[in-house]
């Protein structure tokens, strides 16, 4: 595998961004989509080739996948050995990621051909998709913690642009701003974390950083030795970096931006807010996993608590939402929660197999596929009924059979029903949890039950329930719309059988995992219960949900209002940042700081008017001043110079 090929993977999408951005309108017009797709396709093929060659031929050297840096370019040298490098880091993680990213991105590109047809800013859309894909690929291939921060920001901004794509909707603007600012706030932590860690380690390169912080040495000892507010600098750094990760991956309490981000075009949600960008946080933690794992399990527990809580919390909210995309959004949050806490499952002795790590990446992989499928399916539905609301849907299974089938597959997968993809990955996660931390396991179990419930609630109320008339589309959608669904559907079926533990593991050594049937009974059962419950409530139109909601009362209301987290944040920004800081600052500036300047000016005017009487125009008075002047001067001198006075 040669470097230029790998470079092409991110650069081709960039090319499509530049081409379409500059000449899209004037030159390509409606062909823009095709340009984007073809470039993406090439990039995808190269990615597949690269990944497979890595995994199956070159990568594995004497029982361990090695980490390669085929390309490295110093980008900005700081003084003391700190260098921002633009590089490629080839290891199992990044390989899996480039596959996922290019694959989903390609699907979305194709899907959008029909979904976005006739949009005024069609070319811009594809340009932005290109930009995003480029940044995401750059992110996953980064060899340098600062490089990852750079692409991290780029990803954020392209998500901003895509969320705000329908720019004339005020809601889109609001959502885009919210997404950007919340993640930006999180990135602040990431940045400071980087500064802290890099200053401690004296390097920005991932591998060196990891080795410096995992092998005992003065770097590590100083990082652990110097403490601030009772925590070691290292845990501060990791916590701050995790803050960034949590922001991107919508961990509680920074999750608020993700549901609103659904304002963007649905394919975009599929790409960015389901499959790729939102898992960047997981990726980051996985990237630094050795350090997290090593840094004395202290901080890792925090990670898995957050993850598990987020998973449960989001699942509860998902059960109450009626906007199908929001349901999917919350389910995404919950699933990422799974991945996150899976990463937290560090075995007591670091030598042992880190099942959680593998499981988390595995789940990332499968989830990307079926969640993309769900979103695209939802997109198809929305495309069909022109609404996001469940109440406008129902009984679509006859009208759009393909979509229905694929959607069902995806639901089964996410519900963890064997033999679909979700089953395997979630299995491993639960297993890892079971081995390390039973409480987490139980939370996870409940969550997966809820997952099954709300997914099938969604499924039934879209495709079954009472017939909803008033849409007279004949065709379900053209080939571009359906092909991606089908492909992803196939993916959903087969993805589970990938021998993932052979590919990805914390120490990059392949290991064996076997299915523990007796263990997997419980999750599957919980899943089935959830499904049955959902079908009983939503398969036919009935009053059960309302009654249930009424009985649950306050809790239901709270859940439906997302437990008022948004309101809390809003209160914080409006109340504190604006009214308590910004307003006073502006006032002080105008009235006090500037006031002093004004005061000097007006003071001079005042004086000059007060003393004008001296110039009275009376020549005798002038003379009087003259004489008094002399007398005063002389007598001053007398008192100054003559001691005996």
């Amino acid at each position, binding site marked *: 595998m040669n470097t230029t090929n790998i470079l092409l993977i991110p650069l081709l999408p960039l090319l499509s961004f530049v081409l379409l951005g500059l000449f899209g309108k004037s030159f390509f017009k409606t062909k823009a989509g095709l340009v984007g797709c073809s470039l993406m396709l090439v990039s995808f093929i190269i990615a597949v080739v690269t990944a497979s060659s890595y995994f199956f031929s070159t990568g594995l050297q004497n029982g361990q996948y090695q980490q390669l840096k085929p390309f490295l370019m110093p980008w900005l040298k700081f003084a003391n050995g700190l260098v921002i490098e633009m590089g490629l880091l080839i290891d199992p993680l990044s390989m899996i990621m480039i596959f996922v990213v290019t694959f989903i991105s390609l699907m979305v590109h194709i899907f959008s051909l029909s979904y976005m047809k006739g949009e005024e800013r069609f070319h811009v859309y594809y340009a932005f998709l290109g930009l995003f894909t480029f940044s995401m690929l750059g992110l996953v291939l980064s060899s340098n913690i600062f490089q990852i921060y750079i692409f991290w920001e780029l990803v954020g*901004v392209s998500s901003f642009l895509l969320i705000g794509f329908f720019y*004339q909707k005020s809601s889109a603007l609001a959502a*885009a*701003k919210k997404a950007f*600012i919340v993640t930006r706030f999180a990135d602040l932590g990431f940045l400071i974390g980087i500064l802290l860690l890099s200053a401690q380690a004296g390097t920005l390169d991932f591998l060196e950083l990891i080795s410096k912080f995992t092998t005992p040495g003065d770097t590590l000892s100083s990082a652990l030795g110097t403490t601030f507010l009772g925590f070691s600098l290292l845990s501060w750094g990791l916590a701050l970096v995790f803050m960034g990760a949590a922001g991107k991956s919508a961990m509680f309490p920074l999750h608020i931006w993700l549901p609103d981000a659904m304002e963007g075009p649905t394919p975009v949600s599929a790409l960015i807010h389901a499959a790729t960008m939102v898992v960047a946080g997981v990726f980051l933690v996985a990237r630094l996993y050795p350090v997290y794992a090593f840094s004395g399990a202290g901080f890792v527990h925090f990670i898995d608590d957050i993850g598990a809580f987020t998973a449960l919390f989001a699942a509860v909210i998902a059960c109450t939402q009626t906007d199908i995309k929001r349901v999917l959004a919350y389910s995404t949050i919950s699933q990422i929660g799974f991945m996150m806490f899976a990463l937290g499952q560090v075995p007591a002795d670091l030598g042992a197999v880190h099942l959680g790590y593998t499981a988390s990446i595995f789940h990332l992989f499968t989830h990307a596929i079926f969640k993309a499928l769900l979103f695209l399916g939802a997109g198809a539905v929305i495309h069909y009924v022109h609404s996001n609301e469940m109440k406008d849907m129902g009984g679509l299974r006859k009208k759009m059979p393909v979509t229905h089938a694929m959607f069902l597959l995806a639901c089964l997968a996410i519900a963890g029903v064997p033999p679909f993809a979700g089953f395997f990955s979630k299995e491993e996660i639960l297993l890892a949890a079971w081995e390390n931390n039973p409480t987490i396991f139980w939370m996870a179990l409940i969550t997966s039950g809820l997952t099954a419930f709300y997914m099938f609630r969604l499924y039934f109320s879209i495709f079954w329930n009472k017939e909803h008339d008033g849409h007279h589309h004949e065709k379900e959608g053209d080939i571009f719309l359906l092909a991606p669904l089908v492909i992803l559907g196939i993916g959903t079926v087969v993805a589970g059988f990938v021998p993932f533990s052979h590919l990805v593991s914390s120490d990059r050594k392949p290991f064996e995992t076997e299915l523990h049937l007796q263990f997997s009974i419980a999750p599957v059962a919980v899943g089935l219960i959830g499904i049955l419950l959902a079908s009983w409530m939503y398969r036919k139109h009935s009053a059960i949900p309302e009654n249930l909601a009424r009985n649950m009362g306050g809790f239901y209301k709270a859940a439906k209002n997302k437990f008022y987290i948004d309101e809390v944040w809003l209160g914080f920004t409006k109340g504190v*940042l604006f009214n308590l800081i910004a*307003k006073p600052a502006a006032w002080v500036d105008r009235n006090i700081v500037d006031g002093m300047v004004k005061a000097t*000016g007006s003071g001079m005017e005042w004086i000059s008017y007060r003393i004008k009487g001296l110039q009275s125009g009376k020549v005798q008075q002038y003379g009087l001043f003259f004489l008094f002047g002399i007398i005063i001067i002389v007598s001053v001198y007398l008192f100054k110079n003559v001691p005996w006075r």
Partner: protein
Amino acid sequence: MNLILIILIPLLTGLAILGLNEKHARTAALAGAIMQVVIAIGLYLAFTQERSIGNVFPILFEQQYQWFPALGFSFHIGVDGISVAMILLTAFVVIAGVLVSWNMEKMKKEFFFFLTLLGFGAYGFFVSLDLMVMFFFLEIAVIPKYLFISIWGSGNKDYSANKLALMLMGGSALILVALMGMYFSMPPELRTFDMVKLAEMNIPFSLQRWVFPLIFTGFGVFTAMFPFHTWVPDGHSSAPTAGSMFLAGISMKLGGYGCLRAATYLFPEGAHEYSGIIIVLASIAIIYGAFATMMQKDLKYINAYSSVSHCGFVLLGIGMLTKTAITGAVFQMVSHGLMTALFFAIIGMVYERTHTRMVADMGGLLKVMPFIITTLYIAGFASLGLPGLSGFVAEMTVFVGSWENQTFFHRAATVIACASIVVTAVYILRAVGQVSMGPLKYSSDQKDDARWNEKWAAVILIAGILIMGLAPFWLNDLVSPGVEVITNKLAGK
């Protein structure tokens, strides 16, 4: 490379403009500006050429002429990497300014004359190696601004013009006193204003400790140092477009450059003595400016206040006294110069079409003026520090450099500075988003996009921003040797 050219060209251009009639003034101005760009780039090439053939002498292309020898002046000019960067910046901003004001109606001739005069002052300032020559050019660059605002300005222009001129002149008065103090406190045989000579001798600390703060504050006024920044919002908002571009783009950099070259470099011990205060003031400026910006309703005010915040980074970088931080400060000067000039240019274009600068009165303009708004986005992203654009490079360099200081105080200041990038994101997105997105508020929904001159102005500046943002190593290689000289002096080597 003869540096006299750099000073002479704008001067001759100005005279030519005065000589020509109303119609051809702008052509002459443009020609002059293009020449300046060519020369600036030529200078850059020559400079790198010299360096590549291994000329490590810090100052290149020196020239020295007798000038008031009786008083220890001498017309001594020369450049190092920092000045070259600044000269490039000036050339870019000047040509952009000329292009933007291409369709100036009122008193064209004088307008372009004063614009070129400003350029003249700036170039002279950046090449001068004698403190008094520096001072001379510094003051040359002040008064045209006054006339700019008071003649071509808008709004409460007389007040703003006075405030700007008086505060800046107040700053230079402090500098003047400090310079004289420095001169006469030295033993007669050592008295000189020549920076090269001064850098070689070591000035007693007792002198440094009162000269440094005066000089630094004096130049700080130009860079909107915290309590002395209030001329910025009024001045920028009342000035005509090209005026604000020059004000924010270059003349605030005069201050930063002076703080670096005249204060920190020549009085290192003083710098060490006062760095704490500088850092505190800079952090205040950064965060407080950012928050004050959040409350602004007028695009120009927004950009003006954000300039206060951004120039805070310059002072912070200088105050941190580490090589990286100072390099970052220089980066920030260049980057802020480019992006704020771009921002003001865009504001001018938008204003020309919508006849308002109030954010609340605009909306959805992306539909009617895609190019302009796209550029606005680029400017906005640059100023909120998006990677790939200049702002990011500069800010990150400052942060990393500041973090190099181990003490809690320095790191707290750095964290505060970092926090400002969030606030920046908030106000930039609020403004830009409101202007560009949402329901359209415009007289017609016909396209009314940039004209050729505006496009070129924007493109030139964007090119600068992108080059710096994508390939910072060029600028880094240019600047860091110059900075190293300064940091060596700071380290007492």
